[in-house]
């Protein structure tokens, strides 16, 4: 976190790191808060000034690490528009819930960028972290209205990439998913001044 902050100067790479770090904590928070996995497989960690839980499951950890390293690359190259965390019923593969993380690209600090000869932002890191914390608190608060996931669940992350994006090894094209009778709730947005992250949760209205 500290390497990208020199006098409030955030590089594209640093901004992508912030985004991916947010994604890591957000995805883990969802997995914990929605009760997808046993709570004892999570470990508390201090981040953004609050306690957040990270999964200790080696398979989940490696899945997320691989996913986010690749995503960071794509975000730096502006290939990704959205990441969707989908929660599936293991038994019938039905999509029960979908967390959309929309990535938008912003220009950052134009004058500073000219000076540095690369795209940089000048937003205060503390401010960014505060914004992320607000989103995280909202994520935790969603349990008050999201429906109960009363089945064995699994999750997956789909990347919405641009058409000119290459498919690396171990990656494949996926089918779009849809939730029947969906309700959308938009959470707070935060921005690193280079990337803007919008979090939306859609869930199935129970019948």
């Amino acid at each position, binding site marked *: 976190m500290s390497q990208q902050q020199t006098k409030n100067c955030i590089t594209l790479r640093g901004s992508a790191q912030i985004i991916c770090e947010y994604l890591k904590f957000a995805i883990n928070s969802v997995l914990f808060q929605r009760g997808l996995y*046993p709570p004892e497989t999570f470990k508390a960690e201090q981040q953004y000034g609050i*306690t957040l839980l990270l999964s200790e499951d080696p398979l989940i950890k490696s899945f997320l690490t691989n996913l986010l390293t690749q995503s960071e690359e794509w975000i730096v190259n502006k290939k990704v528009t959205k990441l969707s965390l989908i929660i599936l019923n293991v038994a019938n593969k039905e999509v029960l819930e979908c967390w959309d993380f929309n990535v938008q690209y912003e220009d950052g600090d134009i004058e500073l960028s000219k000076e540095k000869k690369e795209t940089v932002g000048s937003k205060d890191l503390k401010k960014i972290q505060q914004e992320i914390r607000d989103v995280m608190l909202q994520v935790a608060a969603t349990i008050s*209205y999201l429906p109960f996931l009363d089945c064995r669940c699994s*999750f*997956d992350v789909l990347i*919405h990439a641009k*058409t000119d994006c290459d498919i690396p090894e*171990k990656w494949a094209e996926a089918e779009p998913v849809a939730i029947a009778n969906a309700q959308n709730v938009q959470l707070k947005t935060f921005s690193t001044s280079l990337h803007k992250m919008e979090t939306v949760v859609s869930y199935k209205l129970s019948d």
Partner: protein
Amino acid sequence: MSQFNYLNDLKSLATLDGPITRGPLQRWVKKSNNENHNPSMSTSFKNISNVNISTCNQSMQKMSISANQSCNNSVLSSNKTPNRNDNKKGKKTPSKNRTPGRSTTPTPNKASKTPNKADRFIPSRTNSNYDLCHYMMSRDDDKGEDVVAQTAAGEAIGRALSDAEPGRLLQYTCKAPAAPEGYQNRLRVVYSQAKVPSSVKNTTRYIPQAPDRILDAPDILDDYYLNLVDWSASNILAVALGSSVYLWNAGTGQIEQLLTLEGSETVCSVQWVQGGGSHLAVGTSSATVELWDCEKIKRLRVMDGHTGRVGSLAWNMYIVSSGARDGNIVHHDVRQRDHAVATITAHTQEICGLKWSPDGRHLASGGNDNLLNIWPIVQGHHYSQPQYLYSFNQHLAAVKGLAWCPWSSGILASGGGTADRTIRIWNVNTGANLNTVDTKSQVCSILWSTHYKELISGHGYANNQLVIWKYPLMSRVAELTGHMARVLHLALSPDGTTVLSAGADETLRLWKCFMLDPAKKKEPTDSKAAKSLLNLNSLIR
């Protein structure tokens, strides 16, 4: 109006930073709505099955007519907004309203079974998208299909409907594992209103299940972060209701109004001075701490130092410590002109719990940043150091309920909010978390009994109950239910027998749950009687 839903959705999609309040109803609201509907639903369902069989042929014809009717109806009236319940009913009763006259089965109490009559006509509202229809109709006709995508609103839809977006959809082929076989989602407790199967232990002592008295508390603020009741050692209860503070003499039952703040200011916290004095500290929404003499009904001084509302107060001798929304703790020496002797940046968010230990050596503070901090005292003074001794981050929600054990030094109980629902017992001498118990409900307040080795905690959804716990086992001794909304605050009477609970249902309830055993109570009175007899004897001689 249902036909405006679509327009509203478009608007809300176009605005990026919105409060989450625009989201769906909180679950408890939905629950209570459902509850009201449930009985009628089940009865109507039974009858309908009969109706349908008997009038099968007719219903087919009627369907088309009724569908038309309902279309008109739904545009005209607003209370027919399609929602989940209505859909369900609609599906089951395609021709209900048209058929009862011809049906062979009598349907008594028909009116009560159909709260929203019009919805009975529609087989399924999900398929007939009225708001979309309305949008398409009311739109300017000359614009073609392709124009939509170019408008800002269209873009918003495009973003929302991921399927329509061009580009590639990729997935990582090495999938994450599913939850282990046989794992049950433990969040069920958050969703169920059923009573928790608790190991309520039978104790030898009798705990009344009903409150001893119920007092009205109109306009009490339903705010988790405030501390609005306190019971003094001289048996006077201070209660903050909206912008006023009232004093209730528990001995005589007299009520006195102490103060009313001006304008829209509200009282956020009250705390009596230790040791039965008549001084009351009052924290306000205008970020001040006021000191009142309750015998003379006179304000003694106003102390500033905060930038946010003062939601928690704690006394330690002549120091009153205040915690506010700005996350700071200010120690005020009430004797000095320059009252603020120390200001501590304690939390990053609002402080909602603040308690000095009985021996005055530690200050515990809990905040909305989910942290519980322990502050050591400055040697030779009665205020705390600016550096915490421990910062416990194990709670997963705001920490409001805080209570120090009255008989064992350094033992602290703390309770977390909705996302946490645990009571944790700490030893601040070692920093150890001695015990953790999942209460299955928001913990709003905690007290220790002075007569028994027990704790009592006040809870929110689903049962709004008070729970008595055996220490140190933390097994449930009793549950006291009765509040219609969450129990916000607790206070213990000076004699330690009665617990006062203040609920968001605007009532104060007095529970005599720590009454002394009459058998044990006799001993001291007997010895006293014996003593007085002795005295008498000595007088006679």
